């Protein structure tokens, strides 16, 4: 099992929103998609995933509904709202600016 990296809280929200941008998904699916997309570099601790989902739901960025999976099981699906989509855009820009800034610092030191 790959070593899990700690994910900054703000970053976690961004990752969850991004994972949901493609399609509605249940909690387990979200954690796996993030893991896949990051090629196992990021493994989301479930202890932070669900609180993050509830937090996003409270903010109105995602909404949830119970639905059946492809193999006929009840699961809670999360879906991005319009507000969530806007928040995703904003957070992405914010993240780029942050990464660029950190890069600049690192280059200068190098």
């Amino acid at each position: 099992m790959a070593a899990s990296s700690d994910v900054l809280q703000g970053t976690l929200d961004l990752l969850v929103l991004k994972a949901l941008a493609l399609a509605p998904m249940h909690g387990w699916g979200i954690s796996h998609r993030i893991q896949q997309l990051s090629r196992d570099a990021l493994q989301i601790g479930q202890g932070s995933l669900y609180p993050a989902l509830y937090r996003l739901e409270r903010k109105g960025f995602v909404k949830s509904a119970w639905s059946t999976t492809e193999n006929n099981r009840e699961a809670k699906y999360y879906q991005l709202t319009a507000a969530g989509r806007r928040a995703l855009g904003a957070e992405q820009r914010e993240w780029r600016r942050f990464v660029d800034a950190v890069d600049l610092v690192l280059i200068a030191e190098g």
Partner: protein
Amino acid sequence: MPIVSSLTSARMWLRALFRRDQLEREMAKEMQFHLERETELNMRRGLSFDEARRAARVAFGGVEQMKEGSRDVRGTARVESIVRDLRYAIRSLESRPAFTVTVIATLALGIGANTAIFTLVDALLLRPLPVSHPEQLVIVSDPAQVNTNTDGAPLTDYVSFPLYKDVRARNTVFSDMYATGWAGTIDAKIGAGPDATSEQPHARFVTGNFFSVLGVPPYVGRTFTAAEDQSPGQDPVAVLTYDYWQRRFSGSRAAIGTVMRVNDVSVTIVGVTPPGFDGDIVGQPLDFWLPMMMDSAIQPKMDLLDDRAWSWVVMMGRLKPGVTLEQARQQVSAVEANAVREYLSGPALKQFDDALEANPIHVVSGARGFSERRAQYAKALWVLMAAVGLVILVVCANVSSLMLSRAVARSREMTVRMTLGAGRSRLIQQMLVESVLLAAVSSVLGLVAAMWGARTLLATVGGSSPVAIDTMFDGRVLAFTAALTLACVLLFGVLPAFRATRVDLATSLRSQGRNLMGAARVGRIPFGSALVVAQIASSTLLLIGGGLLMRSMQQLLHGDIGADRDHVVAVRVRTARSQYVGARLDQLRRDLADRVAQVPGVDAAAFVDHGLFSGGFAGGRVDVSGFVPRADSERVVSLDQVGPNFFHAIGARLIRGRDIESRDVETGQPAVVINETMAKQYFGARDPLGGTVTLVDTLHYRIVGVVRDFQSSDVRGKPRREMYIAFNNPNRGSTGQAKLVVHVRGDPLRFVEPIRRVIGDVAGTLPTFVDPVNALVRGTLSQDVLLMQATTFFCIVTLVLAALGLYGVTAYSTSQRTSEFGLRVALGAEPGRVTRMVLGDGVRVAMIGVIIGVPAGLAATRAIRAQLFGVGMIDVPSLTIAVVVLVATAVVASYLPARRAAKVGPLEALRLE
């Protein structure tokens, strides 16, 4: 978007709070799904089921921690913990019923007392009239009292009706002004035929624009129209108050348009005012309004509408938009002063101007309506409110010390919990929740108690003339109680919560924390004792004030008014619209007096035009031999017409000369008896006997006696110039009634029925009213009675609270000293000595309280001086009673703990260690 999102989150928060169980189930289901998928994945990677499952669990982490984290995100954790604390508090209070009942009882008494007094204060002093824009209303009064025969009388609200007309016509600051006058009982006959009933409702004459100026719409029917009230006697209509309509006509719409007989004048009911509005006079009962111009028809005895010498109406204006009270004051003062000046000259003018300088015309806000005695009552009520406020402070301090001692008892538990990681704020929250619960329960009980108390108070004032105060709790009173409750929680809940959780973990676990309470001290006095001292001191203050009020009430109700009030019965027979007119009425008066005088136990009976406290009055201008008036006002006197033996019948004392006798009312020279004040004014050192008083320039009366001043209409009033002329001309008396005053031996109530029977024999079915004079006097004192009852009530409440406080503190300190007592007994002290010691401590604390309270009480009584009547500022009997009652309370409150202390056996005491 922010609104939408905050709405979403509010909805989710509420859902989280109220559908907690469902959310928890969903959460568990979601976790379950997650674990299953993870397990499947692991199995696909080649692990066995058990291994896969275990790996999934490990990857997931602590399920409960995750759940707790999710709950935090839902934002309901705090509320859920408060709900848990509430359940805990209920359980813990249930398990200690003695503590709970004591705290709730004291708090409820304190909150109830404060709510009750606030209800009174609000109704009498604070609440604006229920009319449109009350803040625009302005009262204009006549401070100078020049044109009346009571120089310097305290009632400066009144003006004469012509003066009102002048001020109304000449001012430019008011959109309109109205005047109202004479509130009192009036004879009304309602219904027709055999079902007709006679009663004495309270009526008031108002100018036709009264309702339109106040902006009071009719609730049913109509109010007075602009066309009404233009000329005397033309508009026999009446508007009822909602209460009277409900009480007397069962709220029936059929009442509108019916006719009632008011002083035997037919008056048509045209409308009803909305509930809650009972006139512009605060604290005065009222049943209906009559147009001002009906005064001459309904009370045909004096021409009140044209006489500038009789100040009897109050006037109110409504400010024009944009005019300030100050602008109105300047203009109206000038207008009114000039209107008065036009009818004065020479010394009278100078007298008026001097008086005006000393006592400017009052132009004040009328938002809260008129109140004759508000200034007088305000201070007393505020003092009462302050004293009762002090009581709730002390109650809070008491409860606080109880909570603290309980918290200290639990300090070990607190220490353990904090050692195990419970947050201090969490523990404080838990204790505060308990305080809030106690305060909330107490305030509900207090409200109920206050409602009951206010009703009971008003009912005991009761009688024929209850004080009209709305005691239904409105928003203002509820807001007051809520604020008070919150303040209580802050006062008694916060300190113990912080104190109890401020524990030093290391030392507290070792010690028992038993002495924390003992450590709280105010100077050298233990905290608990200081509380009791404060409580006793405030009780002393209240008891002293209450004692003075009760003594003056006694004086008002039974003190000397110059007549033998306890043994006089007043009789009134209505004769209007009967066969008794002129000479026949005169004969009826004589027959009635003769027949009533023969009733066994009756000393004397005299017929009279007005008599004592009958509500009627008359007056006129006189010329007195040898006296040169400097002003017209000096000629004004009150007068009554009396039959033979009048002064004997009312038990008044003649200083000079003789009573009116039969010969005076038969033929012979007209005779008059004058009172002391009149004799002093007109004769000074000269002998008044044999002097002449000339009434309306033509009627000459010879003075045959001087009577000691007596009060005929107001117990508190200053003596006026009064004269009593022989009742020899039946046509000069008030028409339509025959009155008697009857002196009896023994309880006047026993004579009411016999007298009524005799009158029935003579006068047949004429409406007859027979009342002991003291009952009539009591009717004029209903507000005094109310204040006295309220004070008595609050004295009892504080006494109870002081006793409870003293008992609590003594019991607590006694239990703390159990081992000491045991030791003393073991070393040979007699149990009696221990009892005396504990008792002595309690009494000592009480004495300190009394020593502080007496000067404070004496200082506070200055504020209620206006209420006092016939007692000095320092009244030894009431002071002594106050001190004795308090010390007795202290003895009783300390006795139980003292007795218990004496019973402590040495072994029992040592085992406690």
